[in-house]
């Protein structure tokens, strides 16, 4: 009889009656799944995140144990199974996040999928990619005023970089306790770029500006494309050493792509390796969103500040483009500035769509790809600065 009682006390039905907060988390997991599946919000990551969130909040399942990673470092001695905790599947997968492995491997795949040609054809784009990082730092200040620590504020600000792997990398280093809400915010807002950006873009530009037609981009030689990854890696690593893992990974992937001598590595980096890591990353990041950490005012604050960060980044890019037009003979269309937030390639598509509404014969996509990929480099540098200051 006692055994039956014991067994019942192990069931989730009993545990949930003790702590019903988990039901809210399960509901949130379902909402996120809905957004991923039906609304197609970055489903490749949001669906695993939502499922990880579901798994971690199933009472008694023991899929993820925060204690193993308490105080920001990995307690290896608790991983063998001798102690009170029996680590679960997600604990092992989470190691790849905690140790900064997954974001770098995903960035390698991103690099293998990225064409820096439009950026090389118009290097001025890089400036727009710099201006769009404005959101990161203003949000950082805002987050500090709202009571977050500097490390946490950095992680929240980096949402405005609109790069999932960068946000996860910085957060896992500086504020792992916020990984759940920050990942959800980053990927949701990246999917919402077509909703968030257009009003800001229209507000800050005149009809005439939006109608500016840009000159065709010059063709870029293979040689330039091959040299570019080396130059960026070496220079960024010299300037901000802590950005090296991110920048180095993306540039290694890009090198596989552009040299043409490593096609099988390029193919694997952008397909199988990336898919495997995406599954592991998504599930384990989602699993950090336990009821205790996720159900708090901080999460609401982070979600609010995230959207502010995106908006300010968009504004920064557009405004710098307008400012540059004061000096340039050949005007640039300020709509491509918004693409500087990254969110590749969605933000560039938004520039194209908004631009074409004013002038159907205007093709901004390729021009916007320049700032778009520049934004990835810009965010990585910003991330490096924040890690250097607060890591």
């Amino acid at each position: 009889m006692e055994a039956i009682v014991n067994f019942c006390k192990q069931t989730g039905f009993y545990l949930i009656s003790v702590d019903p907060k988990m039901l809210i988390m399960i509901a949130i997991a379902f909402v996120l799944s809905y957004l991923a599946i039906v609304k197609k919000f970055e489903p490749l990551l949001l669906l695993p995140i939502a499922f990880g969130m579901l798994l971690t909040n199933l009472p008694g399942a023991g899929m993820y144990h925060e204690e193993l990673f308490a105080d920001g470092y990995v307690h290896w001695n608790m991983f063998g199974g001798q102690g009170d905790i029996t680590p679960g599947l997600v604990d092992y997968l989470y190691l790849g996040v905690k140790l900064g492995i997954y974001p770098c491997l995903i960035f390698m795949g991103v690099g293998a999928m990225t064409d820096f040609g439009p950026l090389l054809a118009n290097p001025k784009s890089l400036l727009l990619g710099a201006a769009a990082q404005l959101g990161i730092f203003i949000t950082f200040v805002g987050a500090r005023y709202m009571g977050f620590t500097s490390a946490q504020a950095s992680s929240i600000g980096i949402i405005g970089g609109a790069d999932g792997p960068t946000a996860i990398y910085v957060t896992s280093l500086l504020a792992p306790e916020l990984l759940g809400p920050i990942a959800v915010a980053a990927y949701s807002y990246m999917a919402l770029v077509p909703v968030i950006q257009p009003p800001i873009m229209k507000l800050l530009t005149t009809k005439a500006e939006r109608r500016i037609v840009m000159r065709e981009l010059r063709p870029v030689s293979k040689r330039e494309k091959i040299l570019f990854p080396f130059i960026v890696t070496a220079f960024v690593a010299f300037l901000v050493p802590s950005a090296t893992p991110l920048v180095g990974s993306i540039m290694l992937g890009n090198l596989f792509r552009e040299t043409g001598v490593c096609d099988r590595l390029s193919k694997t980096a952008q397909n199988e390796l990336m898919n495997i890591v995406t599954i592991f990353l998504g599930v384990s990041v989602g699993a950090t969103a336990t009821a205790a950490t996720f159900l708090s005012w901080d999460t609401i604050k982070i979600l609010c500040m995230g959207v502010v960060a995106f908006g300010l980044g968009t504004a920064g890019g557009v405004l710098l483009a307008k400012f540059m037009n004061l000096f340039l003979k050949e005007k640039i269309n300020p709509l491509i500035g918004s693409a500087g937030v990254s969110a590749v390639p969605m933000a560039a598509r938004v520039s194209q769509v908004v631009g074409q509404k004013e002038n159907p014969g205007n093709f901004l996509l390729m021009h916007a790809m320049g700032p778009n990929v520049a934004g990835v480099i810009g965010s990585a540098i910003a991330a490096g600065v924040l890690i250097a200051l607060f890591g």
Partner: protein
Amino acid sequence: MELSNTFVCVMGMGIVFIGLICLVLLCVLMSKIVALTTPAKPFEESAKVSAAPIGAVPAAAVIPNRAELVAAISAAIAEDLGDSIDSFRINAIKRV
């Protein structure tokens, strides 16, 4: 010592801008050097590389029928835009 907000912002945006401005210079420099060191037939090589839709324009620019060109580019971009294809319509084929 807690770093001030101003310091972090100025420092942060400063480094980002310094970094990317230097990269602009390095890229321009690299392009110049590559252009100088590439012997002869740079057109052929680049033509092979520029598989991007816009890159095809130089060659196509001599075609008298501008309309076809616009249609071709539109199709290429539309393909690129993927799922947001509905939001994209060519109202008329007009000379720009």
